C-alpha cells in the first residue's frame, strides 16, 4: 500500500495559547513494499509525521494519500478503522500500552478489535510471540511480570498480530540489548522481504538506517531536509552533520581509509561486510 504525504502541516494544541508548530510542508512518498527510514535530530517532528500515517493526527494543511483513501485537512474520513488495520504503528516505548491479564490476551486485543475471531487471534498471538523471539510460555504470563525488553517484544508482537500491510516503527529497539536489537531488526527486514510488508522506521541509529533502508528521509526542524537512497545520503556527510546527525561508523572508517589510500573507493559502503568486500578487492591491485 502506497502512502503519499503532500505539504502536510501540523501544530499541537492549535487554537490555544499552548499552540506550537510541529511539522510544516512535509511531502514524501512511501512506496509499497519498501523500507523507508526517517532520521532527524530529537524534536525534528519524526513521531508527529508517523502519527499521520494512520490518522491519529489529521493534517491542518495538505493531504495524505493512504492506499485508496485521501485524508485532507478539514474533511471527515469514515474508514479510519480500515486504515488503522492496514497501517500498524509501534510507538516509542510501546510497553506502556500493555494492560491485559495475560500476554496472550494483550496481543489478541488488536486483531480482535479489527474483527478477527478469538481462535484465529490466539493463533496469531502464538505466531507473533515466536517472531519476536519470546518463548511460548510467556503467553500465559502477566505482561507486568516481564522484564522491560520482554515487554517491548510483547508490545511489538501485539502490532504484528494485526497483520498490517504497512508497519510503522518509532525507535523500536531503543534500550534493548545489542544482540536483541539485531534480532528484532532482522525480523522486520525478513517480513519486508518475504511478505512484501512496507516498513517505516524512525531511528537514531545511522547504522540501522544505512543497513536496512531503501530510502531515507531526513527531518530537520519540522521540515524535510533531504530524501534519497542511503548511498546518496551518506555520501554527503557535511549535509548530515549540518543537521546534527552522525555519520555511520562504516562510512567514517571508509573516509579515513580513503584518505590514507589517496583515492576514493568505488562506492559508499553501508555495512561492515560491504566495506570488507570492497577493501578485499584492492588486495589484488596493491600486491
Amino acid at each position, binding site marked *: 500500500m502506497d502512502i503519499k504525504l503532500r505539504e502536510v502541516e501540523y501544530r499541537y494544541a492549535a*487554537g490555544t495559547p*499552548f499552540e506550537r508548530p510541529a511539522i510544516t510542508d512535509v511531502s514524501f512518498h512511501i512506496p509499497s513494499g519498501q523500507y523507508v527510514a526517517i532520521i532527524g535530530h530529537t524534536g525534528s517532528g519524526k513521531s508527529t509525521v508517523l502519527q499521520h500515517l494512520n490518522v491519529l493526527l489529521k493534517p491542518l494543511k495538505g493531504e495524505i494519500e493512504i492506499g485508496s483513501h485521501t485524508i485532507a485537512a478539514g474533511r471527515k474520513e469514515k474508514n479510519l478503522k480500515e486504515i488503522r488495520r492496514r497501517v500498524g*504503528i509501534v510507538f516509542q516505548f*510501546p510497553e*506502556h500500552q500493555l494492560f491485559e491479564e495475560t500476554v496472550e490476551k494483550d496481543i489478541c*486485543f488488536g486483531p480482535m*478489535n479489527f474483527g478477527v475471531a478469538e481462535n484465529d487471534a490466539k493463533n496469531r498471538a502464538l505466531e507473533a510471540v515466536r517472531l519476536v523471539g519470546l518463548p511460548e510460555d510467556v503467553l500465559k504470563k502477566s505482561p507486568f511480570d516481564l522484564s522491560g525488553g520482554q515487554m517491548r517484544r510483547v508490545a511489538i508482537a501485539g502490532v504484528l498480530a494485526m497483520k498490517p500491510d504497512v508497519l510503522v516503527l518509532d525507535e523500536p529497539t531503543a534500550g534493548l540489548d545489542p544482540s536483541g536489537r539485531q534480532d528484532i531488526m532482522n525480523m522486520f527486514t525478513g517480513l519486508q522481504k518475504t511478505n512484501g510488508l512496507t516498513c517505516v522506521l524512525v531511528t537514531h541509529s545511522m547504522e540501522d538506517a544505512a543497513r536496512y533502508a531503501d530510502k531515507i528521509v531526513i527531518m530537520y526542524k519540522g521540515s524535510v531536509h533531504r530524501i534519497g537512497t542511503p548511498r546518496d545520503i551518506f555520501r554527503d556527510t557535511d549535509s548530515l552533520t549540518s543537521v546534527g546527525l552522525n555519520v555511520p561508523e562504516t562510512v567514517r572508517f571508509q573516509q579515513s581509509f580513503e584518505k590514507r589510500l589517496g583515492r576514493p573507493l568505488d562506492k559508499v559502503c553501508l555495512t561492515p561486510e560491504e566495506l570488507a568486500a570492497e577493501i578485499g578487492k584492492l588486495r589484488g591491485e596493491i600486491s
Partner: protein
Amino acid sequence: MMEKIIFGRYLPSDSVVHQMDPRAKLLFIFAFVGIVFLANNVMTYALIGAFTFLIVFLSKVKLRFLIGGLKPVLLLVLFTFFLHVFFTKEGDILTQFGLLTIYKGGVIKGIFISLRFLLLILVTSLLTLTTPPISVTDGIESLFGPLKKIKVPVHELALMMSISLRFIPTLLDETDKIMKAQRARGADFSSGSISNRVKAIIPLLIPLFVSAFKRAEELAVAMEARGYKGGEGRTKYRILRWSMRDTMAMVFLVVLSAALFILRSY
C-alpha cells in the same frame, strides 16, 4: 483533545495578576468563595461578574481560551441549572406541561446558582493559570505556617499538593499517548453503546495507573537519593514578597464586599 483542558495548567505571562504574591492570590480566592455567596440579586451579580472579568482582563489570559476550557464543567453547570428550574416552587408559574411546572423563581434561582458556579470555577482556574504550582504551594505553606505549632505537617501537606499539581499535565499527556497507542490497535473511545465505551476505557486506565504508580515510586527514590528532608531548616530558593500591589488587591476586596453588602438589600 487533552490539550483543551485548562484546569491545573500554568500559562506564563508578565501580567499584574501573574506578578502578585501567591499568598495574596490565595487569600483572595478564599475570600472570593465567601463573597460570591453575598450576591443575591441582579445588581450584585452584575457587580461581581464585572469584577471577575476585570481580573480576567488584567491577567491577559484570552477569554476565548478560558471559556473553551470551561466546556468540560459546563455539563455540571447545566445539570444544576435544570435541577433548580424543575424543583424550585417559588414565584409565578411560567409554563406547565404535564406534571412539570416551571416557576419564575426556579428559573431565576437556576441562573443565579449557575452563574455563581461559573464565577467560582473561572476564578480558581485563573489561580493555576497565573501561578506556577510551586508558588501556589509556597503560598499555602506560608499561610498555614502557624499551624506547625500545633504539630500539623504543613510542609508535607504542601509538598503533596505541589506534586499532584505538578503531575496533572504529565498525566494528561500520558493519557493522550496511551489513547493513541490503543487507537492504533483498533480501540474506539468515541462511539458505540455506553457499556462498550466503559469497556473501552479499561485499556486506557490500567496503563495509566501502572505508570502513575511507577512514577510515584521513582520520584520518591530520586528525592531520597538527593537527600530530601523537608520542613525544618530547609532554605528557600524563591522568597515570597508582599508588595503594594497585593495590599491594593486586599483593599479592593474589602471595598467589593462592602458594596455587595449594601447592594444585596436593595
